[in-house]
């Protein structure tokens, strides 16, 4: 007994973390299997509320992955070379985010066996078609961007050609950054456009949706990369990205968040002037109805104003805590925004035509299958992120103020550095 306990104590905390993550992952796998087997009847989605938690998670994943394109653009196109370590983290986070989004979509569509139809049967008038094409293309770009990091792993020592290919691909990083930026500028906005063109849903039908989506995504995506880097640095006790860079990017994210809030303010104010059927009811619900808590606390106060303040002030105060909390709140604000936008459209009366009482009012709360798969997807992404941060040479980082012995005891002896 004593020896088992001793041996367990020798297990690195990382493996406890992996074991812990395997619980939600297996639950997610089971729920996912159940959804594929039984069909979407095991969800709480209805004809009135056809999109729910999965679409929210999908939008959030893509929004938070926006750090990949914006930081790559800053690094490779605007020449902020010092951002490169952070851009690498952002690209890795981005790849995981888009994987999560694609998983959500495959779960959400009624015929997962026909996932490829979007590539074969084009409807160039459809925002969703454009999103499908862009997301899959950008997923390949991210894969190419992560590929050079992966082939640096020691197990690829034997495959010289593969590693050489990795170097070649890395050589084209600026080109990939351009393609990635173009694709992201398209689909980050057209995700908002997907909602914005829906003429029948008063709370969605706004020309500002694409702009609001991309600006919030850039702010939250940058903040999210900073957030994850801070957590990894704290756990690894090593420096992946120099703190001045993190503070600087945090400030940029905070400024963009303020721009977003400014745009949102005028959009909300002007867009809801006077009475318009459906839209005004949705607006009331957002301001003082069932969405008020989520809107005011998460979107505006915590995830908006406070987050922007913390992100911007963190640099002057040299406060890691402010940066960590500020970036985390920004992330929460984005998720709340995507959730509110999606659900508000389906839970409000849409129309009061002289001849029709609307049958479209719906109530929605996700079923266990939706929650289970969503938790599973998040846990799976966290697992791959953790493994990547532990093993990929690109994220080995520099030892910080701790002594070398302590570092070795925590993360193991460092392998010889790669490229």
């Amino acid at each position, binding site marked *: 007994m004593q020896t088992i306990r001793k041996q367990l104590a020798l297990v690195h905390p990382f493996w406890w973390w992996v074991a812990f993550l395997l619980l939600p992952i297996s639950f997610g796998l089971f729920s996912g299997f159940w959804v594929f087997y039984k069909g979407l009847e095991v969800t709480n*989605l209805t004809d009135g509320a*056809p999109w729910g938690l999965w679409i929210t998670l999908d939008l959030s994943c893509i929004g938070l992955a926006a750090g990949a394109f914006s930081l790559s653009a800053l690094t490779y196109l605007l020449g902020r070379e010092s951002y490169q370590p952070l851009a690498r983290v952002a690209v890795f986070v981005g790849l995981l985010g888009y994987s999560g989004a694609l998983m959500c979509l495959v779960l959400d569509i009624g015929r997962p066996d026909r*996932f490829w139809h979007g590539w074969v049967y084009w*409807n160039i008038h*459809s925002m969703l*078609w454009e999103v499908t094409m862009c997301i899959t293309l950008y997923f390949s770009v991210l894969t190419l961007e992560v590929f050079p990091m992966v082939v640096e792993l020691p197990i690829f020592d034997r495959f010289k050609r593969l590693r050489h290919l990795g170097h070649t691909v890395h050589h084209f990083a600026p080109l990939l950054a351009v393609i990635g930026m173009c694709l992201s500028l398209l689909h980050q906005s057209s995700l908002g456009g997907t909602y914005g063109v829906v003429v029948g849903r008063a709370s969605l039908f706004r020309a500002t949706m694409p702009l609001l989506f991309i600006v919030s995504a850039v702010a939250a995506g940058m903040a999210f990369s900073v957030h994850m880097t801070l957590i990894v640095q704290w756990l690894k006790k090593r420096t992946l990205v120099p703190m001045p860079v993190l503070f600087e990017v945090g400030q940029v994210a905070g400024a963009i968040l303020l721009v977003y809030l400014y745009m949102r303010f005028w959009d909300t104010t002007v867009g809801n002037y006077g009475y318009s059927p459906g839209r005004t009811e949705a607006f009331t619900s957002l301001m003082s109805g069932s969405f008020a808590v989520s809107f005011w606390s998460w979107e505006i106060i915590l995830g908006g104003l406070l987050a922007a303040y913390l992100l911007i002030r963190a640099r002057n105060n040299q406060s890691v805590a402010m940066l960590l909390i500020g970036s985390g709140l920004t992330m929460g604000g984005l998720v709340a925004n995507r959730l509110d936008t999606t659900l508000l459209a389906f839970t409000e009366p849409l*129309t009061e035509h002289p001849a029709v009482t*609307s049958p479209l009012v719906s109530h929605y709360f996700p079923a266990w299958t939706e929650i289970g798969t969503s938790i599973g997807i998040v846990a799976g992404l966290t697992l791959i992120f953790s493994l990547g941060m532990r093993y990929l040479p690109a994220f080995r980082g520099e030892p910080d103020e701790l002594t070398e012995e302590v570092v070795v005891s925590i993360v193991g002896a460092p392998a010889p550095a790669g490229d």
Partner: protein
Amino acid sequence: MSTPTKARTREMTRREFFLLAAGLGVSLFGSDRLYKWFMVHEDPLGEANESEVNKGGPYWAMVIDLEACIGCRRCVYACQATNDTADSHLWNIIIEDEDSFSKPVFITRPCMHCEHAPCVEVCPVKATYHREDGLVAMDYDRCIGCRYCMVACPYGVRVFNWDKNDGVNEQVPTWGTPEIPRRPRGVVEKCTFCAHRLDKAAERGLTPGIDAAATPACCVICPTEARNFGDLRDPNSPAAKRLVGRQSVVLRSDLGTNPRVFYLLPNEPA
């Protein structure tokens, strides 16, 4: 990729100037060609612009008289039997409206078959499309079940096959017999204006709206003739005749969808 800093202050060489001018010229010419090519090959609204497709053919429309409808639900049952829909997948629903007029009315709601159909515009795979005659149809073999069309439809006419429809159809055979196969799990479906009947009309020598076998089941079964179907371009069709002299509305005309379902308003007491 990056230009050396020195080059920024250097003047443009003759070679560069010619290259730039040629590039501009080619791109101007190219964009003009491209634009013309698109204008010829692709109507800006594409399949969404039905009026381009349906030139001169019949203009199928349904006219529903709110004064005549007694809310007997027979159109709902006949639709369910003919198109073999489950109880939860009704294509034609009935709404009791007690507030809009001086007396309660029953509003039955099929698909509007809009000219500018939001569902057709948004479908990522063209699984929902305008037929040659302008009706909005579904390709169940192509639909991926993303449900964007359900988000986009302002009328809520679209239903999704959340589960496999393998139950007993209670309305068969009392109100009709299934004429089209059941749709698989995971695709969206909706009212077709009984397009399978319209398509057979010509070869059977029947006139839709007049001959029962070529008219939507809901219109055939209506005991009070509240639902009328026909070609609005033919002044003698039941639908066209019914519209004469009555005040009619289409639902949500503010959206510019231009529906093919017209509602005749109930008579108000003088």
